[in-house]
């Protein structure tokens, strides 16, 4: 009987000691702040389009840090989801693009100037100040700054804003990925002018 008592006492003693150490450590080495938000924000595409249900990328980053699913960014595509999966060490998710337009191609807004009435509504709607213009003067989109979020489309009273895919230029053109195993890497084109 004494053996059992000794064993119990020893275990209790051990438990007390380790409990004390652990309790102390959990207070002493508490992690303050949440730098993860910055990292998440860094991976998001910063289109500020709101398709995730949050007003801007940073709020979504904060929401992700607090446990929201990280697959709600259609502009970022599956790549962003995967990158976030890596960063957060969470379960892999597939992109949840309910109700979103296809996001594979880069797009920018284009204002048909003849129809623009200069109401400035799109300017107010643009999250990155990529539209210039003044009241009663036609507006125009700074293509380099436009993230293609299409938030300006809805407010326009005369529907003069189109979201057009960015055309490749000689500077931005790049080679395609080859077709892959089992495919010929070439193609044929018809030539007439010879």
């Amino acid at each position, binding site marked *: 009987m004494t053996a059992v008592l000794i064993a119990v006492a020893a275990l209790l003693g051990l438990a007390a000691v380790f409990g004390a150490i652990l309790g102390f450590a959990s207070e002493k080495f508490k992690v303050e702040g949440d730098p993860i938000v910055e990292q998440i924000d860094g991976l998001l595409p910063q289109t500020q389009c709101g398709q995730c249900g949050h007003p801007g990328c940073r709020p979504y980053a904060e929401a992700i840090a607090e446990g929201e699913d990280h697959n709600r960014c259609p502009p970022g595509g599956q790549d962003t989801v995967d990158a976030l999966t890596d960063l957060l060490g969470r379960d892999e998710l597939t992109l949840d693009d309910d109700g979103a337009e296809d996001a594979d191609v880069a797009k920018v807004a284009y204002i048909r100037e003849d129809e623009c009435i200069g109401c400035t509504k799109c300017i107010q709607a643009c999250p*990155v100040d990529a539209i210039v213009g003044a009241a*009663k003067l036609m507006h125009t989109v700074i293509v380099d700054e436009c993230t293609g979020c299409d938030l300006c489309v809805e407010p326009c009273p005369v529907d003069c804003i189109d979201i057009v895919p960015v055309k*490749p230029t000689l500077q931005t053109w790049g080679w395609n990925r*080859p077709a892959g195993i089992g495919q010929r890497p070439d193609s044929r084109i018809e030539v007439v002018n010879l």
Partner: protein
Amino acid sequence: MSQMEAAKTRKPTSIFARLALGIRRPAAVHDFHGGIHPPEMKHLSNGTDIAPGPLPAQLILPLNMHIGAPAKPLVEPGDKVLKGQMIAEPAGAVSAAIHAPTSGTVSAIGPRPIQHPSGMDAICIVIDTDGKDEWIPHGGISDYTEMSPGEVVDTIRHAGIAGMGGAGFPTSIKVNLGDHQRVEELVINAVECEPYITADDRLMRERADEIITGIHILQYLLNPRRTLLGIEDNKPEAIKALKQACKGCDIEIRVVPTKYPSGGEKQLIQLVTGKEVKSGQLPAHVGVVCQNVGTAFAIKRAVINGEPLIQRITTLTGDGVARPGNYDVLIGTPVSDLLRHGGVDPDKLGRLVMGGPMMGFTLHNPGVPLVKTSNCIIAASPEELPEPPPEQPCIRCGSCAEVCPANLLPQQLYWHAKNDDLEKAQHHNLMDCIECGACAYVCPSHIPLVQYYRYAKGAVRQQAADQLKADKARQRFEARQARIDAEKAEKEARRQARLEANRKKKEAAATPSVDTAALKQASLEASKAYKAAVKAAKAADAEGAENAAELKAEADRLKEIADKAKAAVRDAGNAAPAPAPAEDIVSKLKKQVGDASSAYKTAVKAAKEAEANGDDNASELRARADELKATADKFKAELRDAKANAPATAPAAPQADPVAELKKQVGDASSAYKAAVKAAKEAEANGDDNAAELRAKADELKASADQLKAELRDAKANAPAAPAPAAAPADPLTELKKKVGEVSSAYKAAVKAAREAEEAGADNAAELRAQADTLKADADHWKAELRDAKASAPATPKAPPAPTDAPKVAETTAPQSLKAVDPDAAAKRQKRLKGLKTAYNMAHKQYKEAHAAFERAERKEEVSADELNAMQQKVDKLKAKADNARDALDALVEDAKADIRAHTGKDLKTLKLEAARAESALADKKIELDKLVSSSSEDALEALNSELKALESEAQIARKALKQALEEQGLVE
């Protein structure tokens, strides 16, 4: 070999290889890793002399045949050009001029398909040749040593010479290293390692003397310690010719064993000097400058003969042509012309390659032009260069790694590129791949490795660009957010201040009641905004954004606001704790009404939808909607009552301050009256039983409002009497102006008061009118005085916008615009525009007033129908007038826009776009520069700096053009 050099020199590959090298080759020739020996196929084209090329009907000259910024055209469609005339000048430091290769007429400047693997178009100058081949006067200098090196460099720059080996880097930059850079070795690349190509081979055989002279010019410019010419041992005749040509000169000819890609710049440097150029650096960093023999030849022609680069030797080869060989073609010659010249057989043509078979690209269109870098056209038959077989799985056999001249692991790169694992691909030095194609050549699985690498490289660049754009978007978004918060906080603070003031006023009479909670809220918001701004500023600062200072200023401003708000809270806290602010029944009711009616609307909508769909719960929904309607109505009725009761308390409290206070009271009273009327009307419409009561109340209110108005009128009429006369004008114009303003506003007020009095039938109306008249006389007097004063003051500072500037700017921005803007017309238009605007404003105002009066009359129900009709007509007339004015104004604005288009050749949109683009390009460049400041070399910095300057001036011009165009047309708001 000096100690320094020995340290720099890195021995290649393994001990075995070095042993082998030591035995087999002279010590002066080193080796590089890998390499392949594809069939040379040079015999096809190297047997015949260089033949003149065709003179095509049309020459197409792309503006970017070289690396760097596209050249700027100097000609316009329709211009006649002579052979050798410069038709486009270099734009910026890294750029090259373009010259007319023969005489003719510029027929177009626009997009044409160009020599690019994408098959896309680019801006080209198209010259219709006239067949005369008439030279512009030109001449060189036989002894280049008479010129300073700087002048020689200028000559080269103006001759438009760009690297002829394939890359097309502007030569003038490569030979102008500056004094701080010592050139150890000048390496002349005569290797021509790609199969098929023999252009340099033939050039060396036939024109070795000129090449040697060109090399001497390069030596003069660079002053290298030694000059090495690398040439493969499969060109014995060229070697002989060169040796003969430079007998006794200080050019060392290094014969290197035939191996592809010995002609790669870095590979050749390693072969002849043993030096290795660090990844990401230029040969100049190890004291080496490398030039192609073709470039040397072109330099000789430019300096000694004064001929710009307008033609080059191009190899035409392959089984698809009857007469393969080397042709001296004019730059801009369409490939199809050369093919026809060489006797092409379209049936035998399977693949058209520009450049060599290892690194060249297939053409999508035989109509593309030959350019400065086009050293070869292969018209291959399908048997000669057959269709590539399908890609098989990689078995990691390692053949690719055996042949890679950069000593990469191509199979690993392929693996990562295929899986889009860009990070790993970069870790395996993807960016050091020179795309020589040796790996893909030997791959037994026929994997298009080079395409994979190019794809991955593109993806890497795209990723970097995306990241940059995302960062910029984030910055802009945060800045915008901070601005909006700041505005909100400011507004809130203002509102609070106003409330505070009101409350303080009220405190005089009643118990002080301070809405501490609201103040606290405001203060909180203000400090939040401030914090956000500070954060944004910090972030911007850290990223080195140019708007950091601005943001900081914003933050400071916000801080002030926040402090103020805090102080207000403190003050409020110090004040006696106020009784809870009286429950504002009206606003609460309003909200309830709003909620109820929106709920009702939703319900109706749902019910409608349900009905439309034939759902069975439609009737249920309908019932629910009705229920909601009833609730809403109930709330509305309540609200009405409350409103009717509320204003009764409003007018009260004797006022110490005169006009302003009265005004406010009048406003309150009349709004109370309006609310009451509305309530009454609604009640009537609903047939409520308290309608009559409400109406009576409204009338009561009206009476009190009218009384207040009358009081206000009196006060106003009395007020202006004081400031009007007296006070001699101390300083001339401004004082006068002020006076005039004061007087006329007093007059206006008086007139208004009089009119109102008349309308209301007040008994002092006549008196008021008289007072107004006096004031008018006064005002007129002052105005006349002001006019006189102005006339006497000769040099008025504010003249109409200086018209002399305008045409100049217009010229610089749009050289093709034919005439400058007529300043008189512009001024006239501006005047008219102003006039029209005022007219419209007046008409609109009158219309509005009339309309209001009409409505009032209608409501009163005292006015007869005739009178009403008359009023209606008047309103309509005024409306028509206003509309007319509006139309005229619109037409004029349209006119102005059209004019801008006509004058500048661009419409307003383009101008605006240009301005915006220029600005953003400028900003980008600045960022790039900042980034580079820490990392990069001085050359790159200088180049960037000059680019930045160019952009800056461009942005300025665009800005100016936009502003001017707007100003000229009087469109500025």
